[in-house]
Structure formats: structure tokens, C-alpha cells
């Protein structure tokens, strides 16, 4: 596995992860375009953790963006996981094609997302430019008062409501949409800790059983990432008899206490 090879990339990932709050694709585009990084070499667990850490630190972070990031990250992790798991030698042609399809889909999404991100920045320029001019809305003076249609014409309860929301919204608030996004409560660090507590007791368990109590796809992904980290550290052995089959996790008692938990400090 690429545990050591990824070491130099970790710094890079952390470096770009911190200032990037505009969106997950920004990060990925950054990593892929600017840093020339093969995503298969990017330690996604580290990026996920870095993001989660930032989320915990900055309450005003756009959770919308964070959620989006994690969704994409999980897709990437799924792709990556297939590469990391044993059984590569006997790849089924259909599976290989499916992998390519998935990759193409992701590529298409990245391209489309980049397209609209660029459009958005142009929109932003348009808005900034237009915002410098103020339209005349004073209407006519009292000489024509009798001719002016009733000012309430066209005012609906809904418009009134919208106007109230507008009026009470602080003008400089950047992200009004923050309130509609569910909080994210999973972290790889937490998952690692859980596994370190759980695995020595059970000794051996299938991944399916290990994650059977989890409802969120994201939680499963995070659990899986944690497992990969433990594998890298030699804490567990992973066995998979067939590609995409269930994974058996075997705790390595020899490796007790070798794990540097500090790495995961949130």
C-alpha cells in the first residue's frame, strides 16, 4: 500500500485544504490541476479529517460546502477503495468497465462543476459592477398622485413575507443558506478511536457486521477510511476472498499501542 509514499503529499493536502472553503471541487481541482496530484495518491482520510477539524473550529463555515465535499470525497474513496483492496489481479472485465464508467461520470461532474464555478465568478463580477449603480425608483411626484395605481397592487402575502425576511436579514451576511444544512458529526479520528476500542475485543469481524448499525453512507465511508489507516499502521489485516466481496478484519495483537493517535488529534 502507499502508506509511506503518500507522506509528502499529506503536507500538500493540508496546505491547500485550509484556505479552500469554496467547495470540494475547488479542493479537488486544486489538487488535480494545480498540484498535479493523482487522486489515488491523495490520502483522502487526511483531507476528510482536515475538513472535519476545520468544521469543528469554524462555526461560520458553510456546511453546505462541507457536505458537498464529503459526498464527493466518499465517491472518490469508493473508487480508491477498489484500487486499494486485494484481488486486483483477477479483475473482471465488467468490473473494470464499471470502474471506468464511474470515473468518466466523476470526470464529467468535475468538468460541469468547473464550468459553473467559472460562470459564477463572472456573475459575481456582473453583480459587483451592477451594484455600483442605483436605479431611480422614486416614482412620480404629488402632481400625479391621483393617477398612480394603488401602491398595494401586486403586493401578495408571499411578497410581503419575502420582504420581511429581506428586511431582517443582516446585509453583510454571506451565507443565509447555512441554516438548512444538517450538521456533520462524523470524523475519521473518532472512528479510529472507536475501532481501537472495539477491534481488540472482537479480534475478527467482517466489515459488513462492523458497519451494520450505521445508517449514513458517509458514516460507513468514514469507518472504512479509519480501517484503511489502521491497516497502513499494521494494526489490522484485511482479507477479501473475492473482489467487492465482504472484507474480513483481523486485529493484529502484536501491534498494540504502536499507533500514533496524536496524528488524529482533531
Amino acid at each position, binding site marked *: 500500500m502507499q502508506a509511506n509514499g503518500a507522506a509528502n503529499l499529506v503536507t500538500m493536502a493540508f496546505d491547500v485544504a485550509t484556505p479552500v472553503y469554496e467547495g470540494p471541487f475547488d479542493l479537488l481541482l486544486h489538487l488535480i490541476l494545480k498540484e498535479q496530484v493523482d487522486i489515488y495518491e491523495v490520502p483522502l482520510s487526511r483531507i476528510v479529517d482536515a475538513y472535519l477539524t476545520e468544521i469543528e473550529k469554524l*462555526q*461560520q463555515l458553510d*456546511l453546505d460546502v462541507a457536505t458537498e465535499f464529503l459526498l464527493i470525497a466518499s465517491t472518490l474513496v469508493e473508487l480508491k477503495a477498489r484500487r486499494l483492496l486485494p484481488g486486483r489481479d483477477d479483475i473482471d472485465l465488467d468490473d473494470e468497465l464499471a470502474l471506468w464508467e464511474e470515473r468518466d461520470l466523476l470526470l464529467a461532474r468535475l468538468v460541469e462543476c468547473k464550468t459553473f464555478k467559472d460562470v459564477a465568478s463572472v456573475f459575481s463580477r456582473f453583480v459587483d459592477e451592477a451594484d455600483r449603480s*442605483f*436605479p*431611480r*425608483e*422614486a*416614482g*412620480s*411626484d404629488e*402632481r*400625479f398622485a391621483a*393617477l*398612480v*395605481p*394603488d*401602491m*398595494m*397592487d*401586486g*403586493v*401578495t*402575502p*408571499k*411578497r*410581503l*413575507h419575502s*420582504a*420581511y*425576511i*429581506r*428586511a*431582517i*436579514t*443582516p*446585509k453583510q*451576511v454571506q451565507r443565509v443558506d*447555512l*441554516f*438548512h*444544512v*444538517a*450538521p456533520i458529526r462524523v470524523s475519521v479520528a473518532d472512528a479510529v478511536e472507536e475501532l481501537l476500542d472495539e477491534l481488540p475485543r472482537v479480534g475478527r469481524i467482517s466489515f459488513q457486521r462492523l458497519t451494520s448499525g450505521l445508517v449514513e453512507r458517509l458514516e460507513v465511508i468514514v469507518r472504512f477510511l479509519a480501517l484503511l489507516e489502521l491497516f497502513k499502521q499494521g494494526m489490522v489485516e484485511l482479507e477479501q476472498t473475492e473482489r467487492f466481496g465482504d472484507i474480513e478484519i483481523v486485529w493484529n495483537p502484536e501491534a498494540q499501542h504502536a499507533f500514533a493517535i496524536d496524528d488524529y488529534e482533531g
Partner: protein
Amino acid sequence: MMSDLPEDELAGNDLAGNDLAGNDRAAAQVPGIPDADSVRAIEAILLVAVEPVPADMLAQLLELPASVVRLLCSELAASYTEAGHGFELVKVAGGYRYQTHPDLSPYVERFLLDGQRARMSGAALETLAIVAYKQPISRAQVASIRGVDPDGVLRTLQARGYITEVGRDPGPGQAVLFGTTASFLEKLGLDSLADLPPLAEFVPGADVVEALEHGLRVQPGHLDAPG
């Protein structure tokens, strides 16, 4: 030199010959007179103003003596007249404003009669919405939410009979409290104020609205509220 100009300088103004709006604006500058940007700023401010703007307010915004502002305004008014524009700059109710030239009234009337759909300005609508949702409410409270003096808008709404004085603040100052009227409800096709769209439809809860009103950062705990 200019400080002694009479208030009603718009009449019989002997500076009418200067064309500040012409191509030679730079040349129109007189030593001691602020540059043409002040005139342009006056034009911009008066364009967006809903109520006549007093010379004092312009003076404050432009950081010029009021006497200079009055002079500039009278020159500007004269230049419009001379150029034969369809609008004019007049001094009414203690302030300056743009209005249409009297001889174009037939066009304006026709436009207002069949052309123009009514559209309440965004500011007026927001003020009305605040009164509707927060009544009884004082002028000062409206101002503190909108961040701007709502005096003109409140007067207009009151004149139209959509809001009215519903009481007095018991505190010092006895501020007038406003509320909406029956004709307001009728116009919206509502039975009662309870029929206004509930605020919860768009925001998680009263606590968040409250927080927004106070301009506070929403606490993390609020994120748990269902969207």
C-alpha cells in the same frame, strides 16, 4: 461670497448662463468652487432620493458648505432648463428634487394611466412588512431593523390608509406606535393578521429570526433545528 445667497436663489438666477452639463464642464470651474464631481454627486443623490433632499444633507454628504451646495444646485437647475431637458430640478418642501417638466404632463399621465404597473419600491415593501409582522412598532424600531430612516415611507403608507397609529409607547418620549389597517388586510385578501405567511416557513424557528434581527451570529445549536 456665496454664503449670503438667498434661499430662493432658483428664481432669477444670474448664473444661468453656465452650462455645467455641457462638454466644457471642466472649464466651468471657478476658483474656490469645488470640482465637477460635486455636481455629479448631487445629480446621483437626487436621482435616487424619494423625498426632497435638503441642502444641509447634501452639504454633509459632499463635505461642502451648504451655501456652496445651494449655488451648485441652482446652477444645475439652470443648466437643465437651458438644455431643455424633460426633467427639471426644483426646490420644494425644503429640499431639492427632480420632477418632470410641466409641459410633458400629458405623456406622464398617459404613462401612469396605462403603461405603468404598480410596483411598490423594495424599501416601502420592507417597511410595510416590518410593520405587519412586528406591530405595534415605533418609527425608531422600524429604523433600527431597516437601518434607514423610514419616515417618508411611513407617511406614504399612512396617507394611503394601509398603516395607522395604534397607540403610544408607554416609555419616555411616548413614541407613536404603528399597525396595519383593515384596508391593508382587505387589499391582501386576508381575514386577519394570523393569515400572514408564518415566518417559520422559511426559517428554522423564532430563535433564529430573533438572532437575525439582532444581527447576532447564529449559535451552533440552531443548526440542529429542522430546515
